[in-house]
Every structure is written in structure tokens, then in C-alpha cells.
């Protein structure tokens, strides 16, 4: 770029002023040094101009490259807004159908800058008309203070905010805050848990998934089905009221996936004001409470005896005489006073027969079997509130006897439901979960008994509902099977006479079980309608029947017409154990 300029400049030099000196220079020797300096200057100029030319060339090429050859689109300067930007504080918790169970809502808190308020008394009066909990005098004092910031009320409802805003008083301001809201309140309180004012989870899923909820904006989807949860809560509440009970708990478990579909503990509490609730209401009876379950444990004893081959289906025991061990006497609630076959022992819930079965199998077999079913260690579930089972120590023969019919070993309802699911689903113990599993994926389980034993247990449980103690659980068309349980509560070191736990654990439909339904009522009192009885069969079984009847259409289980149901039953139950003749025997 410089070089073309040099030519004219030279010409100009020569023609205008330096013509003569230049000609002289050829003859004068001294001019050689000047000429050399000139040459050096030219060379330097050339080098510099070449450098500049190269730099401009690079810039030009780069421009061309960026303008014409740049791949893709240019990076956008302004980032698109992210979905979570407004609710980045804490993610939602939703049920299996996407219904919001816990969410974070923006809320406004009212504050004032007293320096900007002209007439504190008038402002206080007008505010008190909208926010009745603010006393005009106290507010006026606040508004007249020398400070430049005073809180008036935290977390206003949208309506309150609108009305305060429409007053148009200068000097009042809103501060945006985040508030955790539970649209379904007490219904899911024990599962979802609650968070404190700083939005830190203090119980339930809120506590267990604290980090996930904070860091991941995607909602946590639970396996709970709100509709089933509601049905269970409503029926349990009705039973509690009818039998004047102090509490109740219920669970619905998908036996194929181990998903907990409903988990209810009554009485419940409002998760938005957990401090106002008594401790008893905040206590999760389903997962944290441990109870001696009573006769429902006969499911495990019978399954164990059959699976170990300690007894066969056609064996039986004479139950006419009570069993006396040390200072204990084991007797039946409604003694049959004769020889009973194994299915009969199960159906009539004979303690004596069940103890005989357990003794045939032995203590170590019982320990191993109950351990396999997860009854001797805490249940694994995504909740911080998990009860530890209470085991006998040492586990003597007398313990084996009492545990066989559900006394002397206290477990949580959650453990029980998981174990029964394994008994009816073909013999595989599935890991329990409160999170929704993707559909159509088979959940791997651990085999704890043969499929044959599981099949036998299914029809025996069906017979309990057909002819035995669980008749009130018979939901027409759904082939419910199950087992009742009634256990006296331990008060100190003695069993109480009038405080008991009435429970029923059922599964349906029994030819191919989909759900285990458990209902337990704490300290029910007998009524005239139940002839003073407050047993599992009278109290909890009807709850399970109504829950099954109401939930089955929702979860897509078709009721069977009577003749079809009978046909299925005939296939299910061996002929010699079938029908009323067997029941009357």
C-alpha cells in the first residue's frame, strides 16, 4: 500500500526541489551516507507496510470467513427464558397422574416506608379494613416510626394483595416471596411431608428429596394415585368414626411393580401449619408405626410351612386342646374342637393349628423365611419416617409359637404389605417405592417362595373371604382374597383387654393379583351393629371391600359377571376344598 505512494513522492522530490542536489549527489562522495540512510528508511517503510498489509489481509479474510462461510446461525445474545426461572426455588411434587401435590407459588409480603407516609392513622385504618388481623393502633405506631422499612404482613393472599394495591397509598410496597403450597393438604400430608418457611423439607418426600427438589426443576412424580388415596382416606375415616377409633392406616400396593398407590395415616394434619397439629397426627402410622399384626401373620406361617414342605395341603392338626407352654396358654378365638386340615386352619384362623405348623417348620426356618420377606429389617422406602421392626431377643421356641399367629414381632404396615405382595404375586419380593416407575418395564424381584406355594396361598386367601373370617371384604366380581387380623395392644408389659388393632389385608383379583389393599383401625370399639365385636373381620374387612369396589373401575380392573367369577374360582381352588360343603364341614 505504501509502495505506490513512493513513486510520485520521488518524482515530486526530484522535480520540485531536490533536482539539483540529487544530481550533485551523484558526484559528491559525502552524499553516499545520506543515500544509505534514505535506503534504510525505505527498507523499513517497506517492511512496515508489508506487515500492515499482512494484518489487513488477515482481517479481511476473517471478515469474509465470518460473513460468508460461518457455519450455522450466529449465537443468540439474549437467552431464551427457562421454564424454571420463576420457580427455581423448589420443584413440584405430583401424583402418578400429574396432579400437583406440592408446589411453590410466588406470594407478596407487604412492607412500608414510613418516611413516605403522610397520615399513619388514616393509612392504618384503611389497611385494617382489608387485613383485619392488623390492629389499627399498632400499625399506626409502626407507620409513624423513624425507620425506612417496616414489615406489615408476610405472605398475603392474591386477593388481599389486589385490594391493598387498589388503595393506591404511596409508601406501601410489596416484596415478592416464595411460598410452599399443598393443594390437597391433609390428604397427602404424611407422604408429601412439609417444608418450613425457608422452604426446607422437614418431613416426608419434601425431606427425602430435598436436594433433588432444589436442584432439578422437573417435578418429582410419586406412585401415589390421588383418587385411590382419597377413597382409602374416606373409608378409613368412616370406619374410625363408626367404631370410635383413635387412628387408622391404609395402604394400596401394586404387587407387580412394588409401587405404593395409596398411603393413608389418620388422623392427619394440615402440612401448611404442621406446628398446630398434635404429634399423634404427624405420626405416619403406615411407615413409622410398628404393630403386632395378629392373625394376618398366619399368611406367612402357612406359606412357610407349605414352602418348606413341613406340611402338605392334605395334612392337618387336632386343634381341640389348647397348647400350654411354660406359663402361656395358646387358645383359639372361636374353637373348632376337632381335626382341621391346613386350609381350614388358615380359613378359620386357628391359633393352635398355626402354632403346630410353625413348630413343624422350626425356629430357624421361620427366622429365615420372615427375613426373606423383609419383616425382620426396616422397610426400604423413600421416606425419612421408617419404623424399625421389634424382634424378640433371643428368638426362642415360645417366640416362634407366638410369632406364627402375629404376636411378639412388631412390624410396620409397610413391611407387611410388601411381604403379602410377594406371597400373592407368584413369590417374588419387589422393592417398594413411592416414585412412579415407568410403565411396561418388568421390575426385577427376589424369589422368596415357589410359584406353587404362592398359587396355593392365593386360593386359600380367597376362601377366607368366601367362607371364613373375611366375608365382609367380598367385593362382588373382583375376587378379593385376604386375611383378617385382630391383635390386643401391648400396654406396658401386659396385653390390653379392650385396646386392639383390627386389620385386614386383601389382594384382588385373586386369579392374577394386581393390588394389595391393607386397612388397619387402631383401638376400635364394638357397636350394636357388630354385636360388640371390634375384630378385623367386622371393622377392617368392610373398609377393604368398599375401597376395592371404588378403586377397581378407576384403575381399569373389570368386575367379573357372577358366572364368570365362579368359573375362575373353580379353576383356582382345588375341588376338595371348594364350596359351602367344605365350609360347613
Amino acid at each position, binding site marked *: 500500500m505504501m509502495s505506490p505512494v513512493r513513486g510520485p513522492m520521488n518524482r515530486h522530490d526530484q522535480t520540485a526541489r531536490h533536482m539539483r542536489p540529487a544530481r550533485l549527489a551523484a558526484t559528491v562522495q559525502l552524499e553516499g551516507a545520506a543515500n544509505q540512510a534514505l535506503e534504510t528508511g525505505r527498507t523499513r517503510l517497506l517492511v512496515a507496510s508489508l506487515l500492515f498489509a499482512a494484518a489487513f489481509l488477515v482481517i479481511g479474510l476473517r471478515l469474509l470467513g465470518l460473513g460468508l462461510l460461518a457455519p450455522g446461525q450466529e449465537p443468540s445474545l439474549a437467552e431464551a427464558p427457562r421454564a424454571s426461572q*420463576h420457580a427455581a426455588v423448589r420443584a413440584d411434587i405430583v401424583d402418578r397422574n400429574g396432579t400437583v401435590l406440592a*408446589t411453590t407459588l410466588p406470594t407478596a409480603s407487604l412492607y412500608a416506608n414510613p418516611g413516605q407516609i403522610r397520615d399513619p392513622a388514616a393509612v392504618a385504618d384503611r389497611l385494617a379494613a382489608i387485613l383485619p388481623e392488623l390492629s389499627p393502633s399498632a400499625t399506626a405506631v409502626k407507620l409513624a416510626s423513624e425507620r425506612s422499612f417496616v414489615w406489615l404482613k408476610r405472605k398475603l393472599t392474591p386477593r388481599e394483595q389486589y385490594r391493598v394495591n387498589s388503595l393506591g397509598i404511596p409508601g406501601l410496597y410489596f416484596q415478592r416471596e416464595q411460598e410452599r403450597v399443598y393443594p390437597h393438604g391433609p390428604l397427602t400430608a404424611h407422604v408429601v411431608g412439609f417444608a418450613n418457611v425457608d422452604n426446607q423439607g422437614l418431613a416426608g418426600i419434601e425431606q427425602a428429596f430435598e436436594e433433588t427438589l432444589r436442584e432439578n426443576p422437573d417435578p418429582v412424580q410419586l406412585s401415589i394415585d390421588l383418587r385411590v388415596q382419597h377413597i382409602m382416606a374416606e373409608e378409613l375415616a368412616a370406619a374410625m368414626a363408626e367404631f370410635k377409633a383413635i387412628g387408622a392406616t391404609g395402604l394400596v400396593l401394586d404387587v407387580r411393580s412394588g409401587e405404593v398407590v395409596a398411603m393413608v395415616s389418620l388422623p392427619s394434619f394440615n402440612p401448611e401449619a404442621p406446628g398446630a397439629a398434635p404429634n399423634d397426627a404427624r405420626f405416619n402410622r403406615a411407615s413409622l408405626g410398628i404393630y403386632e399384626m395378629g392373625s394376618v401373620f398366619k399368611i406367612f406361617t402357612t406359606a412357610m410351612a407349605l414352602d418348606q414342605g413341613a406340611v402338605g395341603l392334605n395334612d392337618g392338626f387336632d386343634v381341640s386342646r389348647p397348647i400350654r407352654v411354660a406359663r402361656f396358654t395358646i387358645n383359639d378365638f372361636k374353637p373348632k374342637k376337632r381335626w382341621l386340615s391346613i386350609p381350614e386352619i388358615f380359613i378359620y384362623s386357628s391359633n393352635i393349628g398355626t402354632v403346630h405348623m410353625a413348630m413343624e417348620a422350626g425356629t430357624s426356618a421361620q427366622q429365615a423365611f420372615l427375613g426373606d420377606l423383609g419383616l425382620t429389617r426396616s422397610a426400604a422406602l423413600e421416606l425419612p419416617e421408617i419404623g424399625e421392626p421389634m424382634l424378640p431377643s433371643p428368638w426362642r421356641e415360645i417366640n416362634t409359637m407366638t410369632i406364627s399367629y402375629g404376636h411378639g414381632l412388631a412390624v410396620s404396615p409397610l413391611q407387611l404389605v410388601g411381604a403379602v405382595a410377594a406371597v400373592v404375586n407368584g413369590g417374588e419380593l419387589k422393592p417398594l417405592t413411592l416414585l412412579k416407575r415407568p410403565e411396561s418395564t418388568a421390575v426385577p424381584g427376589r424369589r422368596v417362595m415357589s410359584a406353587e406355594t404362592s398359587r396355593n396361598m392365593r386360593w386359600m386367601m380367597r376362601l377366607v373371604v368366601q367362607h371364613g373370617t373375611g366375608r365382609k371384604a367380598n367385593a362382588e*366380581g373382583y375376587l378379593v382374597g385376604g386375611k383378617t387380623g385382630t391383635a390386643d395392644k401391648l400396654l406396658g408389659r401386659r396385653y390390653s383387654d379392650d385396646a386392639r388393632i383390627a386389620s385386614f389385608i386383601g389382594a384382588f383379583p385373586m386369579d392374577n393379583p394386581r393390588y394389595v389393599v391393607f386397612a388397619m383401625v387402631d383401638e376400635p370399639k364394638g357397636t350394636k351393629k357388630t354385636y360388640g365385636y371390634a375384630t378385623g373381620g367386622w371393622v377392617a374387612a368392610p373398609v377393604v371391600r368398599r375401597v376395592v369396589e371404588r378403586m377397581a373401575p378407576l384403575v381399569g380392573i373389570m368386575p367379573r*359377571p357372577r358366572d364368570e367369577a365362579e368359573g375362575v374360582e373353580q379353576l383356582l381352588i382345588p375341588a376338595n376344598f371348594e364350596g359351602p360343603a367344605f365350609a360347613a364341614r
Partner: protein
Amino acid sequence: MKKVAALTWLTAIAIAALGLFHVKYEVQRLEKDLSQEHQLILDHREAIHVLKAEWSFLNQPTRISELAARHLGLAPMIGEQVVQLEVLPERKERPNDQDEAPAAHLEATLASAKGE
């Protein structure tokens, strides 16, 4: 000749400068628009979020069942009310007015129902 060249260059510089400023202001305006739109999107998202919570609240099963009891006069379904399609007996003969469009038939029924 030189003057022409200088004039050309000057004009070119003026045009380039004007173009540059024009583009700059245009970009500023668009960016403002964009951020307004983003704010609007965020506002709408927040509104949707709040409405979802409200929808969930309004869908409380207890409330729905109360409303259903008050306004619908329906009772919970029992098993015997459900019949599978296969169980239904097959229709013996087709009705004669087969050609008549079903919609027209429906309209006629509705009209007669309204008239009552």
C-alpha cells in the same frame, strides 16, 4: 479526478456510518422487544403455574364428590353395573331406516326432547 475520488469515498463513509447507526438502533429496538416478550413469557408461565396449583386445589376429591352429590344425583358405580361388550347379545335384525343419516336422527331426537 482526485476530487471525484475523495467525494466518492466521503459519500461511501457517510452512507456506511448512517447504515451502521441505523442497524445499531434497529438492533437495540429489537432487543428491547425481545426482552419484553421474554418477560411476557415468564409472566404467562408464572400465571399458568399458579393456575395449575389452583386447578389442583379445585380438584380436591372431597370437593368434587360434594359437587357431584349436589348437582349430578349419581352414586358410585358398583361392579354389577359394568358389562363387557362381548357379553351383550347380538342385534337380531338391522333397522329399516338404515339409510337415514345418524346425525339427522339424533337431531330429530334432540328436537323432540326440546319440544317436550
